[in-house]
């Protein structure tokens, strides 16, 4: 356990080295929230939400929180990919730490870094939309931790499977855009379903948007803060499955890749 904590500490120290990058990321998230969402308030048809929502801003604020969580938790993959390419993992292997502890430490560090980055965005969301009850807050934080760990696992799995930096960056872009835009971050799930029924969006995209962990994360926050969509256990289930699959895959892949000669 102590070894895992050391790895987490190591990754947190690395995280703060990217302060410029983090400042850029937070300014982009804030620009999305404070400019784009404010203007979209005037553009989005109020009938779309059937009076359940006061504004698009209220709908989007939980979405931007999840966006920030995703981008920051995914950063661990970039570092792991760089370490694999430069063979820094040889140094890691020389440490008195088991392979499993190393892999678990990296995974948890990625997730916790995402949670830390996301906290101010979540607080801003609470400030505008109201604070949840303590039990709801615990559920939100637990669910977001599952999401962050899953994202961290996904990025580590991608980082160790693709050794070329350019290919990794391209794959990362593909994952980002597919998960961002095929989710309920920017638009309600109900609208995606309706467009699917009308034949405007292919059914696989509708299914992907529903199973997308980012949709579950954003909708879970919305369900407690704005009351729509209704909270269901499916949201937690989706996040738990996503987290379990990618935590396991990334741990196994990471252990395997650092032992490869």
């Amino acid at each position, binding site marked *: 356990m102590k070894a895992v904590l050391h790895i987490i500490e190591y990754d947190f120290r690395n995280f703060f080295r990217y302060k*410029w*990058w983090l*400042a*850029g*990321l937070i*300014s*982009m998230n804030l*620009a*999305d929230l404070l*400019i*784009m969402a*404010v*203007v*979209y*308030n*005037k*553009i*989005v*048809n109020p009938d*779309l939400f059937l009076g359940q929502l006061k504004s698009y801003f209220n709908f989007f604020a939980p979405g931007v929180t999840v966006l920030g969580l995703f981008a920051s938790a995914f950063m661990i993959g970039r570092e792991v990919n760089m370490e694999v390419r430069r063979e820094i993992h040889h140094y890691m292997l020389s440490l008195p730490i088991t392979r499993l502890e190393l892999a678990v430490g990296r995974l948890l560090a990625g997730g916790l870094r995402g949670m830390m980055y996301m906290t101010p965005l979540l607080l801003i969301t609470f400030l505008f939309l109201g604070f949840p009850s303590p039990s709801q807050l615990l559920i939100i934080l637990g669910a977001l931790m599952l999401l962050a760990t899953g994202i961290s696992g996904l990025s580590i799995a991608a980082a160790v499977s693709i050794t070329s930096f*350019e*290919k990794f*960056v*391209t794959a990362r*872009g*593909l994952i980002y*855009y*597919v998960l*961002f*835009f*095929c989710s309920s971050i*920017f*638009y309600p799930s109900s*609208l*995606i379903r309706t*467009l699917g029924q009308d034949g*405007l*969006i292919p059914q696989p*995209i509708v299914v992907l948007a529903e199973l997308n962990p980012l949709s579950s994360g954003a909708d879970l926050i919305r369900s407690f803060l704005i009351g729509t969509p209704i909270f269901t256990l499916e949201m937690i289930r989706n996040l738990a499955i996503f987290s379990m699959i990618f935590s396991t895959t990334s741990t196994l892949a990471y252990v395997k890749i650092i032992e490869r000669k």
Partner: protein
Amino acid sequence: MRKLFFVIERDLRMFVQYKFLIIMRAIWFVSQVAFFGLIASRMVVPQLADIYFEYYVAGVVVMMLYSASVFIGYDIFEEAEHGVFEYLLSLPVSRKELVLGRSIGGGIRSFILVGPLIAITLFIIGLANPVNFLIAFFSLFLFAFGVSGMSITIAVGLKSADRFDILMGVLNAFIIRLSTTMYPQVFVQEANLAYAKVSEFNPVTFASDLFRWGVGIERYFTMTPMPLAAIIGLVIFFAIFTFVGITIYERRLEGGGWR
């Protein structure tokens, strides 16, 4: 003049190396159009619903043009890091030719990247008036050269790749969102007067409005008379950043000032 072409040619050849960047940008374009554009056009108020998809697609092209033109600044840092600057300075090319060539090369290569996307956009939107389109198309060159000049100015002014990266990220976040790439000016004004003021004098707004005018989306213009007002805005933007860029870059080049 011939030397200027050599500098431009070099930048164009270098751009081919960035095939992964091109793939990534293409994925971004498809996601923006096929997902966000399509779904958002079903979310908007009735008075905008009939044209929002086309309006947004045209805006995405200008966003692409902006981000591709900015890329020349990253090249400058790469060259400084790898000692290529010394090589460039040893060439029988004047400083002015070098800087002007880089600015034009940066602009042209962004057009090479955006060209196929403009073709897709024309396929989606259609082409109402070819003459208007050609006027808009050539005016957008000024925009691309101006953005490249701006990127070069900031790159040589900052001297730190990290700071450049963050500043361009922040600038990108604000300059795009405080423009009419994603929404018409009338709605920006309704949302916030301060945002509207920035948007009104934003070169990205000039480029977006001009491109929409060129492809025949003639509602919700920010300025009048179109296209003259937008072209004047772009000429001023181009002149300022090309002139300032050349002056600063030229000064920094001497005596290892870029280090």
